[in-house]
């Protein structure tokens, strides 16, 4: 019995005894920017996300490494006074939707957040925005699939998060949320546990080096309390039972255009990060979230980060918001998720490892571990199997419709005949006794 479980135990030990992820610099930067709400009155959430999008683009992350999820399109909403434009400031200096304007009038962005971008790398920036997931594609499922990279082989590369263990990822989310959940499009919600488990799978599949998680929603800080995977710094806009507020409304657009926490994030990033060489630390950014500015208690979680608070605060902001073009000589790590993108076997392997490890932590019984590991595989296999429902046989139905829809007289005769026959049967029955 013990012999049988030995490989699993060994594997689990191996996983655990792998050297901690090196402090070495990352080689790529990715950003996942998610707005989760629809509808005109949630204009600001789109503006929040687009502002962040602009900023990371300005600081050098290429479009190919930004995953942008927007459930609604405010620019084309008929209620929009400025058709085809989205603004994040009532000064309307910067149209987040069309960056050509911005280039034409570099001073136009005086009040607008992100206006400073015009003088930096902005000039070389390709115009327009590239939305990777839009409308009904923005779901909890697609978000989690994106993080854990579980897609059918046909899924386009541009809509994938092609990260590895040397990638730094910035994840920014905004929408309507509550205690430990964030609503997706009024239809579903993602819980803090879902998110934490997704990050754990990313960690197991070596899909990130370090991860900065930012969230602007009501009770935002409850979203990161469940995280348990190393290498994550998380920050949110408000504590439990606190609302996050919008910053101001534009009286011509008729709605609030940006949220406070995001506004001051952008404020900081615009003021302090003028070039890709700026040496600004995360700690400074986090200290910028004072109650006076945000009107709620923004929070930061450092404990998952190797080296704790000091190390996290000491990271450069550009480690997440900017881009590095490091080239890493191929060092194949066993079980690397990228080796078989779309290969469910590797997914199952990772799942099995997580399950095994968690089980081992929970109890020492090796037999149990074996059983659950197997169960995990079995469940996974079943899930992967595509269930094709038997095609409904509609032919008979049509036959019937035709016969039932026939002439009334025929039907009546049939009915009368059947009644007569039944009466006969009845009569025979009563004689029979």
């Amino acid at each position, binding site marked *: 019995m013990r012999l049988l479980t030995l490989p699993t135990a060994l594997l689990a030990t191996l996983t655990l005894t792998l050297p901690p992820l090196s402090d070495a610099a990352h080689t790529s930067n990715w950003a996942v920017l998610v707005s989760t709400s629809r509808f005109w009155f949630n204009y600001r959430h789109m503006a929040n996300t687009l502002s962040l999008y602009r900023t990371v683009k300005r600081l050098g992350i290429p479009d190919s490494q930004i995953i942008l999820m927007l459930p609604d399109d405010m620019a084309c909403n008929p209620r929009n006074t400025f058709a085809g434009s989205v603004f994040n400031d009532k000064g309307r200096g910067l149209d987040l939707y069309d960056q050509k304007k911005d280039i034409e009038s570099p001073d136009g962005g005086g009040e607008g957040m992100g206006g400073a971008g015009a003088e930096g790398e902005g000039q070389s920036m390709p115009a327009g925005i590239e939305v990777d997931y839009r409308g009904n594609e923005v779901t909890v499922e697609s978000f989690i699939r994106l993080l854990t990279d579980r897609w059918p082989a046909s899924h386009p590369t541009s809509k994938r998060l092609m990260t590895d263990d040397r990638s730094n990822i910035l994840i920014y989310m905004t929408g309507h949320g509550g205690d430990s959940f964030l609503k997706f499009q009024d239809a579903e919600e993602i819980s803090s546990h879902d998110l934490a488990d997704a990050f754990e799978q990313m960690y197991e599949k070596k899909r990130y080096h370090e991860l900065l998680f930012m969230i602007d929603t009501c009770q935002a800080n409850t979203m990161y309390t469940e995280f348990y995977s190393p290498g994550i710094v998380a920050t949110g806009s408000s504590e439990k039972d606190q609302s996050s507020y919008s910053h101001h409304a534009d009286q011509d657009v008729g709605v609030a255009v940006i949220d406070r926490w995001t506004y001051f994030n952008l404020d900081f990033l615009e003021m302090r990060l003028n070039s890709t060489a700026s040496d600004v630390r995360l700690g400074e950014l986090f200290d910028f979230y004072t109650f006076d500015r945000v009107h709620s208690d923004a929070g930061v979680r450092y404990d998952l980060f190797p080296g704790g608070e000091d190390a996290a605060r000491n990271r450069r902001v550009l480690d997440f918001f900017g881009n590095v073009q490091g080239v890493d000589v191929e060092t194949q790590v066993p079980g690397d998720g990228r080796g078989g993108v779309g290969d469910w076997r590797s997914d199952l392997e990772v799942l099995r490892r997580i399950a095994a490890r968690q089980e081992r932590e929970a109890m020492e019984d090796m037999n149990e571990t074996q059983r659950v590991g197997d169960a995990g595989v079995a469940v996974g296999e079943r899930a992967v199997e595509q269930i094709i429902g038997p095609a409904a046989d509609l032919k008979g139905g049509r036959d019937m419709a035709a016969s*039932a829809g026939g002439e009334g007289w025929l039907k009546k005769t049939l009915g009368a005949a059947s009644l007569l*026959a039944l009466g006969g049967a009845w009569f025979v029955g009563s004689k029979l*006794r």
Partner: protein
Amino acid sequence: MEALTKVYRDQPKTVLFTAAAAIRILAALLFPALPDLLTLRAELSTPVNSFKRSETVQYRKVYSSMSEDSTHTMAAYSTSHACQAQATTAAFAVALAGHTSLHPVMLLPPIGLLCYDRVCVQSAEKGQTSETDGAIADSTKTNVAVDLRSQPQPLQFGLRFVATFICAEAFLFGFSRLILPSWRFIPSIYMTLLELPDLTPNAGLWWYFFIEMFDAFRSFFLGVFWLHMLSYSVPFCLRFQRQPLAAVVLMMGIIAVFEPYANAGDAGAWLSCLCLLGHLFELTSLHRYTFPAIATLLYSTLLGPAFHHLWIYAGSGNANFFYAITLVWSLALLILLTDTVYAALRDEWEAERPEGKGKEIRQM
């Protein structure tokens, strides 16, 4: 006026039935649009009895006369034939009723019991008339020693009864197949009842529950609901061995309340069938809450359509309003049902101990 008074005094039943028939005919003559109106009412119309919802029930069109009414008629026929100890026709009638909608099959055990009871009584009478030469010809209720050996064997009778039922059902299936082009009528009639595909609000308890249900639990709870309904049939037979008619009527009540597509028609048919237990009325009204229950029924009959209107047409109410009323409706019916159970049991008890008549019971 004098003539009227006389008629009323002499034959109140004639007046009642004539009036009822007159109203029915008048309604049909004066309001030709009434059937259309009624089929649109949520309380009355369900996929099982409505011709308008044609997708699921188009097979039923062929039996153009076999609406829900005929199910009731068949159940009533079955009961009456069982009372006359005509096992074959009783079973055939149950088969007919069960053929058009599933739940009358649950009436099979109590009706079989009733039939058996009557057969026993008849054979006992036969024996007695031959022995005592009609000394106590006064039908049933005397306590005379009956030779048990002369009674029909219960097992044998039961088997024969069930066999008749199965034969009749098989005949009906074959017959239906004959006039219909395929076997697809079987799923379309029975799966509609078993799987509850149509969750349009009605007077029953199922629709709201299954709207709220997570899909994963759906089949489980469908099973639970059906088993719950089924679970009454045999216990009633066991407990009311001495009053099989009560078992039949009570089972009809259970069906009227708990059936998947409940409607006011079924409840009305059951309330009418309660008259078969007329001898219990006095016990129920003396010891139980008949009037409050009927008042509650009245309230819910008025409030139900009002809340349905508020929800569907005025848009100012919601589904919970209407569902609350269907709950009240079912509750009132159930109170009537439990009162009847109480009265039947009490009746039995009082027959054993006449000295306890009219006294209050107290739990010790």
